[in-house]
């Protein structure tokens, strides 16, 4: 690791979860992050640490990342006990080092839930969320000529409501933050975005039943209305969508 520390930069102590593979036991390792400026994003800070590790001939820390613009939902780390680091409406990639001070100790852990097995270090398998999507988060349409633009009218209120739910980027922070490892905020958002629209009505019953069933089969826990999920959600998905999921389920039961 480079010993040189540039003037005006921060040095931080990182305590990071390292795990070689899904079946290997994991442990915390301590690293020093040197030459970090306040302009580094959290992931860029890890890039710096990884370069040092590579230069030293060591295995870099594996973590998920993709767009680094806060929109793809790939980055996934629990930082000092909070999914995405606890900045309001912020993903890890948009968390910047200006929120830390020189000399800070930072715990970095992967999402922890039975439904999200750890693949390596900070990377977890979030396919369970995809399986919930596949179970019903779609509408079936007949292909053919493009439909008329305004053939199905949707009120502004409904469109806004649906868009609020559709803002979910599927990062899984809700599951990571849930004391029960439940995926109700995710599933609630996915069900609600269709429930509010006319196109979603045709398959409404099958959708809610099969999505709940798959959610349960994937090993997610049950919602106990703690609402930690909304607090860490980088898109601030509202827990009212969980109530909507419950309501859609009850509607489907009597339909």
């Amino acid at each position: 690791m480079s010993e040189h520390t540039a003037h005006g930069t921060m040095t931080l102590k990182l305590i990071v979860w390292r795990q070689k593979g899904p079946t290997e036991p994991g442990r915390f390792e301590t690293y020093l992050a040197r030459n970090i400026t306040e302009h580094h994003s959290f992931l860029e800070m890890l890039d710096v640490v990884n370069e040092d590790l590579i230069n030293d001939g060591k295995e870099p820390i594996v973590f998920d990342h993709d767009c680094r613009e806060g929109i793809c939902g790939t980055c996934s780390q629990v930082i000092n006990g909070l999914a995405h680091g606890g900045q309001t409406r912020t993903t890890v990639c948009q968390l910047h080092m200006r929120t830390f001070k020189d000399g800070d100790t930072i715990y970095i852990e992967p999402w922890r839930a039975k439904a999200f097995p750890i693949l390596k270090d900070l990377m977890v398998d979030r396919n369970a969320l995809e399986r919930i999507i596949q179970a019903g988060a779609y509408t079936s349409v007949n292909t053919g000529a493009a439909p008329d633009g305004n053939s199905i009218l949707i009120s502004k209120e409904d469109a806004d409501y649906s868009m609020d739910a559709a803002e979910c980027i599927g990062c899984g922070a809700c599951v990571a933050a849930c004391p029960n490892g439940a995926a109700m905020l995710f599933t609630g958002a996915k069900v609600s975005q269709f429930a509010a629209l006319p196109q979603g009505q045709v398959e409404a019953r099958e959708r809610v039943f099969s999505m709940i069933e798959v959610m349960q089969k994937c090993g997610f826990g049950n919602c106990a209305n703690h609402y930690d999920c909304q607090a860490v959600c980088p898109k601030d998905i509202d827990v009212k969508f969980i109530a909507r999921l419950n309501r859609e389920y009850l509607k489907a039961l009597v339909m």
Partner: protein
Amino acid sequence: MSLLTGNVGRKVLMAVSGLFMVTFVVAHLLGNSTIFVGPDWINAYAEHLKELDLLVWPFRIFMFAMLSIHVFFGITLTLENWGANPDKYAVSRRPRSTFAGRTMIWTGLLLLAFLVFHLLQFTFKITPEVVKVVDAQGRFDVYTMMVAGLRNKMVAAFYVLSMVALFLHTFHGIQSIFQSIGLNNDRTMPKFIMIGKISAVVFLVVFSAIPILILTWVLS
């Protein structure tokens, strides 16, 4: 997706059974409050309840069913939830969940123990210290039974502790009912949360006042 095995279905059953029990607690609180007016009032109240003889057993069976559903699913759901989140974080911060919410299983089990004792003591009247006398008008003297029973410091302390558990359980539980049965939206949610918190405080204050006032000889 069955109501009895499904993820959401069982939460709905928890909510509905909880709602009936909270309604019962409110009725019980109103009835018990007659003790603050005087011995004559609570004895008269008990006598009136007795006159509803035909309704009492069906009602008890119904409440027992609600309790059984709530306890059974409460325990099984909790065990499932522990299983779904087996590896704990080294550092864990809880941004929005409450102590009350995270201790529902423990406050619930304490309330169950309390309920068993409370029924044995004041409903079936088979605990050793129960005083069974009639008042001047020949009615069963509930007031004397309560005062004698709750003058025991250990019993009174258990009652107050249980009411703290009821406070915590309903603090999280009441608002949770509305969320689980899907009635929450932007407009209603803050109101349901407020109703839950106020009710929990009222339950704590009124129910705890009875053993405390008896122990301090205000009621004698």
